[in-house]
């Protein structure tokens, strides 16, 4: 079924036009604004970024938060995915729906619910009160931000890990067992290494999405919990410092693309490596 060039152009034109005008062009616009002003080329905004205490602190906080949320999601998600990979296909399908259920609900609403649960009058503090413990401040702390973000991102990590685990040949484990490996040896020497790339994929997606979080840190964190997306919003709506906002956005974009690029390089090599090992 060969398509002729005019047909292809006709099919692609609307989407290309839309993405070109409202995605690619605006992104280049932001990058441009971060190195050009009315008088021409300038390194001003970049210098401002490097010299700004606030920006440096917020950037650092963004990375630390993304890294710790990703680590927590992997640690919590991997065993869950492993458990799911051992279920019967039908049971697994139902359980998967359950895991994905919160994923279908607006991030704003899920974050909102955490405000109610973790707040001073919330269920957590009421429970502690019944136990005779003084109310604790969870809302508007980094802990609350972690809870909210993990709840939002965990399903993605679990499902990505699970997909990789389901690709692993069950016979390999059986072979290891029949050759005398103990259950845990078979897991650590055969299953785990084969599942690592899937877990890494999930972790990377989680990390990249964490970098761009906006709602959860703004609502669950304190004033000192804002991350880069919130800072960009502040620059645009309060400080009206557009060049600075553009530099921040460009930095965020660059980091995201670098992560994706590095990941692509590593994964490609891994595929070549395992492909060669299997004699394909």
């Amino acid at each position, binding site marked *: *079924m*060969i*398509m002729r*060039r005019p*047909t*292809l152009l006709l*099919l*692609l034109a*609307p*989407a290309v036009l*839309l*993405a070109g005008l*409202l*995605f*690619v062009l*605006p*992104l280049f*616009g*932001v990058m441009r604004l971060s190195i050009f002003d009315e008088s021409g080329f300038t390194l001003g905004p970049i210098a401002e970024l490097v010299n700004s205490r606030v920006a440096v602190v917020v950037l650092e906080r963004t990375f630390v938060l993304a890294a710790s949320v990703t680590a927590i999601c992997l640690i*919590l998600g991997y*065993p*869950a995915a492993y*458990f*799911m990979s051992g279920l019967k296909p039908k049971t697994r399908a139902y359980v998967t729906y*359950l*895991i994905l*259920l*919160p994923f*279908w*609900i*607006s*991030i*704003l*609403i899920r974050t*909102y*619910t*955490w*405000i*109610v*649960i973790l*707040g001073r*009058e919330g*269920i957590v503090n009421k429970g502690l009160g019944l136990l005779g413990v003084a109310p604790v401040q969870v809302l508007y702390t980094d802990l609350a931000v972690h809870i909210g973000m993990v*709840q939002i991102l*965990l399903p993605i990590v679990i499902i990505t890990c699970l997909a990789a685990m389901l690709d692993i040949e069950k016979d390999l484990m059986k072979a290891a067992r029949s050759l005398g490996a103990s259950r845990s040896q078979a897991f650590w020497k055969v299953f785990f290494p084969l599942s690592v790339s899937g877990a890494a994929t999930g972790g990377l997606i989680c990390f*990249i999405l964490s*970098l*761009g979080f*906006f*709602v959860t840190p703004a609502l669950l964190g304190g004033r000192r919990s804002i991350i880069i*997306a919130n800072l*960009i*919003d502040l620059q*645009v709506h309060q400080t009206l410092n557009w060049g600075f906002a*553009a530099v921040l*956005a460009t930095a*965020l*974009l660059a980091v*995201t693309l670098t992560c*994706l690029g590095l990941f692509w390089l590593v994964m490609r090599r891994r595929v070549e490596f395992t492909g060669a090992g299997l004699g394909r």
Partner: protein
Amino acid sequence: MRRALAVYFVVLTGFLILPLIFLVPISLSESQFLEFPPSSLSLRWYAAFFQDPTWVSAAVLSFRVGIGATAVSLVFGTLASIALVRGDFPGKGVLTAIFIAPLILPTVVLALALYIVFLRWQLVDNVFALTLAHAIVAMPYVVMIVSASLRRFDTTIERAARVLGAGPVKAFMLVTLPYLVPSMFAAGILAFFASFDELIITLFISGGAQTLPVRIWNDLGLKLDPTVPAVAVMLTALSIVGMGIGELIRRRNEQRYQSATPPEA
């Protein structure tokens, strides 16, 4: 070991769906303070939603923009998917990446970018422009789902139609499109909720016009309005029902096309 894992899994799943479990009783509370468990039940906050014109107009705007964005992304995305799956041309990989990218790149970057160009083009506070901006965020779902479904399609069926005398467009319309419709429906639902949920871009470019998420967001800055849980429950019910129908139709279609092919000997 297996049992310990099972217990762990149940606890974790509980954590994931915890907010959903709490939402319903909170929304039914009589009190104007958000309390759990509620001391007395009532539907007053649901009524409050429908009586407040600002909530209603926010919902109307969300539906308008959501339906528009779904239509645009569904048509544009499906056409592009056909070209991406069936066609062979240079730059296919790059183009696919561009269509998928809004899903993974930080939305705030796109929001700022759109704000800058929309100010120049005087499109801030323009419902039509807002709809197109939402379509950008919704299109990745369409491209991913429709092209995956198209890739699974057995092209010999379409070829059979061609051999029997149908032209390429007719063969596609009568054979392939009916197969694609359920995944397009599922993609459309995802696209709709992607738009319905979109907050940051709307905050930047809507020029003060409020969609539901923006209305909720503005409310949260001031006080904890008990109407919000009622809205949240209605939205959640809407998305669960919508996604459920989409998934059901998709699965029925898959089974239909599976049983249509004769079992292999």
